[in-house]
């Protein structure tokens, strides 16, 4: 083996090529749409490119960590995350009316972001430990592990993150075999507690929900985002207005067009055909994630891989659903396409774990 071939082998040993190609294609689409959404602002685009490269590097690092190590990290990560969340509640900095950030001297961090992975890891770890004798009590404990950070994050308030962590935790419970009867029961309890939840919501959150049902109620306020993004998507038609030709985008009718509403830009310029292609591309990545999940050898890896994959899907569905006006406006980015470093890193960290699960020698329980 030549040294370059050895290097190549060393670099790609723990990388899942199929997944990598899918992710890179999505990122490429992301850069193209961002270029249009920012009105050809190359500095924003190159910033995003740097975000991607950093996130890819982190993904590669994580992919190289064997699963046992990751599993060992689950409890400390969760504990640290929980402590930081309490720290936020006590000493957090307020920005845009929400207490999400914690200043730890060197920099500011958003502990809820850490919990997006720490919670499913912790829950999967717990189920793995009690694999042999799973009882109702175990599901209750796992649920408690989920609810504790959720309450803290909901208080910040951060509806988007709460939703994502809740779903990632629910996926773990669901894949761990939570009985359908309990799921149905939970659903009923959930619906029953809606009025209570409604009372807990902040005014702006309530407005978001209200305007979902009728965006025209507040066309220049809370409804403005949805109305303009729906117009952008609808006016894109079958094949779109062409790259960089979206009028809603380029005449600034679209709000948040490079971040949460970037799908409207894509949809306006590439139409139904582009949307279908993008959904297909996402489906390929999700499908690969499902395959990795199916092939995973331990309870922990199965649950983690499944939860990561389904959470990735949740991001996509919630974001696009919001842009096309079937879900309320919540701050959820479109994975790998929305501008922003944090979500890019979180996302690819997850895919790093998936790759690690797929490429490291599988442990068979003996």
């Amino acid at each position: 083996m030549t040294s370059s071939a050895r290097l190549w082998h060393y670099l790609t040993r723990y990388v899942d090529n199929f997944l990598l190609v899918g992710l890179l294609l999505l990122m490429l689409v992301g850069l193209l749409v961002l270029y249009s959404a920012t009105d050809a602002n190359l500095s924003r685009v190159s910033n995003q490119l740097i975000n991607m490269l950093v996130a890819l590097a982190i993904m590669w690092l994580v992919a190289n960590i064997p699963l046992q190590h990751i599993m060992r990290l689950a409890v400390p990560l969760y504990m640290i995350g929980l402590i930081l969340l309490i720290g936020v509640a006590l000493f957090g900095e307020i920005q845009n009316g929400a207490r999400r950030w914690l200043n730890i001297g060197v920099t500011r961090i958003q502990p809820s972001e850490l919990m997006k992975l720490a919670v499913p890891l912790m829950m999967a770890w717990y189920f793995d430990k009690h694999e042999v004798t799973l009882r109702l009590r175990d599901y209750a404990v796992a649920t408690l592990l989920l609810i504790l950070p959720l309450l803290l994050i909901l208080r910040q308030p951060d509806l988007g993150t709460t939703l994502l962590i809740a779903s990632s935790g629910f996926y773990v419970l669901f894949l761990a075999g939570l009985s359908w009867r309990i799921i149905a029961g939970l659903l009923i309890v959930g619906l029953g507690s809606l009025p209570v939840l409604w009372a807990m919501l902040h005014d702006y959150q309530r407005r978001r929900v209200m305007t979902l049902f009728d965006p025209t109620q507040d066309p220049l306020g809370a409804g403005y985002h949805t109305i303009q993004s729906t117009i952008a998507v609808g006016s894109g038609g079958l094949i779109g207005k062409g790259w960089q030709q979206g009028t809603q985008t380029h005449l600034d009718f679209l709000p948040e067009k490079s971040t949460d509403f970037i799908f409207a830009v894509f949809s306006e310029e590439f139409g139904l055909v582009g949307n279908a292609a993008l959904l297909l591309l996402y489906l390929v990545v999700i499908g690969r994630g499902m395959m990795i999940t199916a092939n995973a050898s331990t309870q922990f890896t199965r649950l983690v891989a499944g939860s990561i994959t389904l959470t990735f899907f949740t991001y996509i569905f919630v974001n696009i659903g919001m842009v096309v006006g079937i879900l309320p406006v919540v701050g959820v980015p479109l994975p790998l396409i929305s501008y922003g470093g944090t979500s890019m890193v979180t996302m690819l960290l997850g895919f790093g774990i998936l790759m690690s699960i797929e490429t490291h020698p599988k442990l068979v329980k003996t």
Partner: protein
Amino acid sequence: MRRSAELRNHGRELHHFQRRLAVSVGFVTLLFCLLFARFFYLQVSQRDHYHTLAEANRISISPVVPNRGLIFDRHGEVLAHNYSAYTLEIMPSKVTNLEATINELASVVEVSGRDRKRFKKLLGESRKFESLPIRTRLSDVEVARFAANRYRFPGVEIKARLFRQYPKGEGASHVVGYISRINTQDLKLLETSGDFANYRGSDYIGKIGIEQSYEKELHGITGSEEVETDAAGRAVRVMSRNPPISGNNLKLSLDAKLQEVAEQAFGERRGALVAIDPTSGDVLAFVSKPGFDPNLFVDGIDSENWDLLNNSIDKPLNNRALRGLYPPGSTFKPFMALAGLELKRRTPQYTISDAGFFSLPGTRHRYRDWKEGGHGSVDLHKSLVISCDTYYYGLANDLGIDKIFSFISQFGLGKLTGIDIDGEVSGLLPSQEWKMKRHQQKWYAGDTISVGIGQGYNLTTPLQLAFATAILASNGTAFRPHLVKQVTSSKTGEIRNIVTEPLYTLNLNPDNMAHVHKALVDVTRPGGTAARAGAGASYSFAGKTGTSQVIGMKQGEKYVESKVNERHRDHALFIAYAPAEKAKIALAVLVENGGHGGSAAAPIARLVLDYFLLGKLPAGAALETGDDGEGVHD
């Protein structure tokens, strides 16, 4: 055993998990299908609807205001033009705290107290959602400074606009008038006249003078633009354009230089002068002193200047030539003389013996002549040259009010002349019918006597007097007096004359006319009441002096000019035309409280005639020469 159970358990668990995973795949697929269905609904079924919405978002139709027509004098000198300049405008509806915004603006561009007052006044009169100028004529430096600070001022914008300017300032201000911002009252008028659509986007409208009466010609036809706008309402680019049609240019019959000579001849005195070309009805000069600076009104006048103009006892905003009513005094006599001749109540040779007063037969009331002791023997010629009152008392009595009225009204007195600016008042030539209607009183013989010398109920505007003089000068041909000579269509370049045909021609005996002309020429010659003003004239200068009383004198009381309050002194009048045998110009001069017509009004007429007929500038006159074509838009 335990191991196998565990294995079996493990297998079952794996099976269980894979079922759950399959459910998940189904869940994902289902929701993606839901998304796709929504895409299909939005992008295929409802595509046209959203396309329309997107187009409505980005395209707005905005009016393009036409350039207002220019106003020139008869020789092409500019009297009203447009220039482009930057204004700083505030949309009050988009600003929460106007006061604070203006204070902050003042730190970037100069905003004077006068600007603030003007803005406040505009605000009170403005239409909703209108953008109002806080500052006009910004310098390049100020434009740059504001542009750098623009982010601090939402609702405040710099706009390039065309401004109206009147280069002559006070000169001819009562003729040209001014435009000013459209107010709610104008809007109502536009709505009823059906011109509202054409004023979409227009901020200005003519308020008085020619700017008002020729508003339809000057305004032009508003165009439109399809403009692509961004979310902030800023125009990004023009998609299509239906260009506006500029307003038509007006060429006045007014001679700006003559006007200037006349205005300067008044000096600080109040009064009016109207000069008409008797062969066409062209108004050559139209002076009302004092004037005002129409430029003050264009962007809304501030309250300080407004009070100054409005409350001045000199009433500079009052158009005296058009609306001032004065007894014609002795300038009425030539018309009386002609009536006497034409109606065969007098012959040129008929002579009276003037003892200084006239009494109606069988009464003792004395109608006094202005000269104590009278003028001795007076015929028609002398009666005009020395302005004998007694002669006309008798003549009036002989003619009777009905004949006076019907004959003299042919000269346009007591009626609107129909001049082409608004606001003219009709004056008064009394008649039996009028007195009955107005005062429910019958006409007394005594009433006729004072009418004969242009007093009594007689009231005329300087314009009417000039019109009557023009008819006299042209031996009976009446042209409607007009300030605008030609309208040039900006679209076709076609030139249209306002007046081409005479209104009517009186059938007057040339011999009678010759007698009157000769007498009026002698008025300005040695022995005449205007001899001093006529001295050395190289053309035949026909004129008639007049003095009209401001306060009545009691029987036996004597008027002493020096003892009377300045504002109660007599008005000085003078009518003139020249050259008498074929008049090119006829005019009427009025000097308020000027005293005697011969000394106060006739010299002004002389200066005007000298300039018009000989091109001679008055001594010491410094007239502006040449026009500054700078920044003229058409």
